[in-house]
């Protein structure tokens, strides 16, 4: 840079905004940062906004949560209630419960913020689940995004526990029952169960400590970790650039869409307000967790219909469906009826978390993937995902068996038996059915590519036959329907090398080949139409 240009720069009076930016750039290097990111391209698709719903509901939860901490007393000291809610006058309760009643009845807007906080939490978890399934079924978890998949999965699991600890804070009869369940489950852990329980609750259940302890976990420890993960998750999204669906001009080496500034700034920023506004509306019109109707917690009281929030319904279903096995050996008790579900829970959740690594091992594919799959084009993955979802939702439904029983006039025992059987059978059935449907859809796509779209026009041929006229697809549609890759099943290579020495095939390799056949072998995916087939049909031969 020569001296003349420097003086030129100085002689021009820069606008105030630019001067502030200059100041910041000299210290933070913002221009280089902005150069890479300001016009970053984001593709448009509604399903790409699911993650934003998660992010925004998380922000809403933090904002409203900070407000709630200003009024909530995380204390289990016993007080007699004398606030404005008449049916609780004079009732003994913990300060935590009393302050939650105050937030609901005596602090203006407190009830609204409490309800926004709780609704946003339910929606946060639900949106994470849907977002995760979007990523799963489109194969967006493939290289280079496996780590981000794990970050997202961790956020979901941490969200479950943050939600659970928050739900327990008001110390009402419903959440207290949930805490009791947790304590009972902890007791079932062999050898250390009683110790963990005593340490967690500061003595015997319920003691006087758990609200304060859950409070610091709920407002500090878990959200802190989650915030870090959210930031890391977003940095990786920026760094990897967003995936996109196949389409005209969209390749594995580019990303097509609109720039961050101004379009996504406006759209994503606007979407934050839309999400905030809609969640506020939900909180304005629908009650959530009316703790005043539930009463303060007492370990000798309970209400029927005792359920956790939805994201804990899956573990609840596991526990409800489990038969009561208990083994007494040599003066010790193995509480299998509780401990087995406790162990299956990480297994069910973990099954989906490790899937990307299994798939990449089966395919042996080391390339980056930025073009999304249509679920039908990967029948085995899609079938696995649906089977997992069915597994999850069978258990979730099982967690509410008593409500289904009363509202659909069924026997609670029958539902429990149904869940027990469906736990094993339903995922298998779902897997098989989904795979058949996917292959059927692939067949329909191939049909469309080769013969064109059914136009709905009926033509009568000279000899009297009626046929439906098929209109050929345009190049865009043709490209979209054939852009997906198809793997060939792996083979066990030659077992004898070039020198004639026999090579031992490891069982791991055999398993991989077997799985690969299950994924890509004949009958497990439909070979997509080739250009030759297309040309042959289009040239008039073989047209029906």
């Amino acid at each position, binding site marked *: 840079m020569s001296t003349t240009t420097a003086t030129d720069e100085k002689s021009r009076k820069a606008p105030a905004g630019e001067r502030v930016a200059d100041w910041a750039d000299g210290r933070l290097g913002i221009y280089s940062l902005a150069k890479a990111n300001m016009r*970053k391209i984001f593709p448009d698709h509604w399903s790409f906004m699911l993650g934003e719903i998660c992010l925004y509901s998380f922000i809403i939860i933090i904002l409203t949560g900070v407000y709630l901490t200003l009024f909530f007393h995380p204390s289990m000291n*016993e007080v007699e209630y004398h606030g404005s809610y008449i049916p609780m006058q004079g009732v003994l309760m913990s300060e935590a419960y009393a302050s939650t009643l105050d937030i609901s009845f*005596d*602090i203006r807007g407190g*009830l*609204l913020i409490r309800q926004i906080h709780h609704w946003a939490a339910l929606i946060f978890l639900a949106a994470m689940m849907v977002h995760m399934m979007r990523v799963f079924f489109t194969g967006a978890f493939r290289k280079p995004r496996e780590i981000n998949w794990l970050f997202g999965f961790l956020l979901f699991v941490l969200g479950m526990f943050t939600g659970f600890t928050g739900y327990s804070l008001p110390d009402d009869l419903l959440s207290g029952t949930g805490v*009791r*369940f947790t304590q*009972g*489950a902890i*007791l079932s852990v062999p050898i*250390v*169960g009683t110790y963990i329980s*005593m*340490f*967690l609750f500061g*003595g*015997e259940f319920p*003691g006087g400590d758990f609200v304060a302890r859950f409070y610091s976990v709920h407002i500090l420890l878990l959200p802190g970790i989650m915030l870090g993960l959210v930031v890391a998750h977003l940095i990786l999204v920026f760094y990897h650039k967003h995936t996109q669906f196949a389409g005209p001009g969209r*390749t*594995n080496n580019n*990303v*097509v*869409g609109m720039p961050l500034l101004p379009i996504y700034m*406006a*759209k994503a920023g*606007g979407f934050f*307000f*839309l999400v*905030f*506004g809609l969640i506020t*509306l939900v909180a*304005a*019109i629908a009650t959530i967790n009316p703790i005043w109707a539930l009463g303060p917690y*007492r*370990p*000798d009281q309970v*209400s029927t*219909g005792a359920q956790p929030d939805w994201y804990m319904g899956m573990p609840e279903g596991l*526990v*409800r469906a*489990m038969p*009561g096995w208990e083994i*007494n050996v040599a003066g010790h*008790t193995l*509480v*299998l*009826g509780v401990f087995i579900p406790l162990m299956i829970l990480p297994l069910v959740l973990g099954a989906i978390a490790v899937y990307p690594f299994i798939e990449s091992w089966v*395919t042996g*594919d080391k*390339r*980056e993937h930025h073009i999304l799959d249509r679920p039908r084009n990967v029948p085995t993955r899609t079938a696995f995902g649906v089977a997992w979802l069915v597994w999850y939702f069978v258990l979730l439904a099982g967690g509410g068996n008593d409500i289904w029983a009363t509202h659909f006039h069924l026997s609670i025992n029958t539902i429990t038996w149904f869940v027990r059987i469906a736990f094993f059978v339903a995922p298998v059935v779902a897997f098989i059915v989904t795979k058949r449907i996917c292959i059927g859809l692939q067949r329909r796509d191939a049909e469309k590519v080769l013969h064109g779209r059914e136009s709905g026009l009926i033509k009568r041929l000279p000899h009297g036959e009626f046929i439906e006229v098929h209109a050929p697809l345009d190049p865009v549609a043709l*490209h979209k329907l*054939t*852009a997906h*890759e198809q*793997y060939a*099943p792996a083979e066990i290579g030659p077992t004898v090398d070039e020198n004639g020495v026999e090579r031992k095939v490891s069982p791991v390799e055999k398993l991989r080949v077997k799985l690969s056949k299950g994924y890509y072998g004949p009958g497990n995916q439909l070979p997509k139409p080739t*250009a030759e087939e*297309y040309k042959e049909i289009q040239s008039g031969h073989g047209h029906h």
Partner: protein
Amino acid sequence: MSSQEEISKENPPSEQDAAHGAVVTADDPFADPGLPAHQPRKQDIDERSAKRSERMVAILFMVSMLATVAFIASFVAFPVDKNVFVFPLGHVSILHLSLGVTLAVALFCIGAGAVHWARTLMSDVEVADERHPIEAPPEVKQKVLADFAAGAAESGFGRRKLLRNTMFGALALVPLSGVVLLRDLGPLPEKKLRSTLWAKGKQLINMNTHEPLRPEDVVVGSLTFAMPEGLSEHDENFQSEIAKAALMIIRIQPDEIKDKRELEWSHQGIVAFSKICTHVGCPISLYEQQTHHALCPCHQSTFDLSDGARVIFGPAGHALPQLRIGVNADGNLEALGDFDEPVGPAFWERG
């Protein structure tokens, strides 16, 4: 297409021919037709239409402002305890509803305005941005590895094994202080879970009336809850004590009691069972007086109270403990001892 080539070098041999990129030829009917030309929106070519969009966005922002004013007005105007009937919501707090709706409108309209602006007035030309491989080029990798090797060598980390090992030792030990500090989170379990407040001679106090129960109070088919004499709801440790001592009392015709010990431990068919489920500790008291079944509302463990409270359905692993009862000199029901086994959920040391 150069990076495409580069990537396909890494293809496992099994899918080389199947990869789509490799077969792109001039006469491929499935070839990528390329990014389509931008089609103008109405707003791009018709200034009146653009003005309409502009007005719409401005109106949305103004509605938001009005809603915020309304929010503040509601906050000031409505008392916190006034409920009104609003169809179909029911008798809702007018303050809550008005704050909620105005805030929702204020937020939603900002969002709707911004999105409408972006969708109709900002450029909607699609742009393609190149991607670059995430992996570093080989020369960068070589440089990093060399730097690392140089750094490691300079530290003497590999050479001076004593330093390395003692450092690992120190780092491994120091977190133990943190673990030790957690010791005082709570007491050791000892025998705490094995005993309750019940003891020989303690009268059964009706949870409703707080009076001692008499056998003639308890009729067949009734359900009563009791706590041990001397415990009060105002006690410091009431919650922890009632969590173990809670008792449910029913009366069954003695000839309907199938379990011999249950009959022995009852008083003329009055039986006292622990109210705490042996599964995970919910208070179980959904008692069906005709079937004598008690159901737990949390996980549906079902106990037959006429047969030693054995488990007949659900995840609980053992029967509800029974409290042996009798009648004292005043004619009140009393416990003849503590439960002979730990109440509530099973645990490792229970045996």
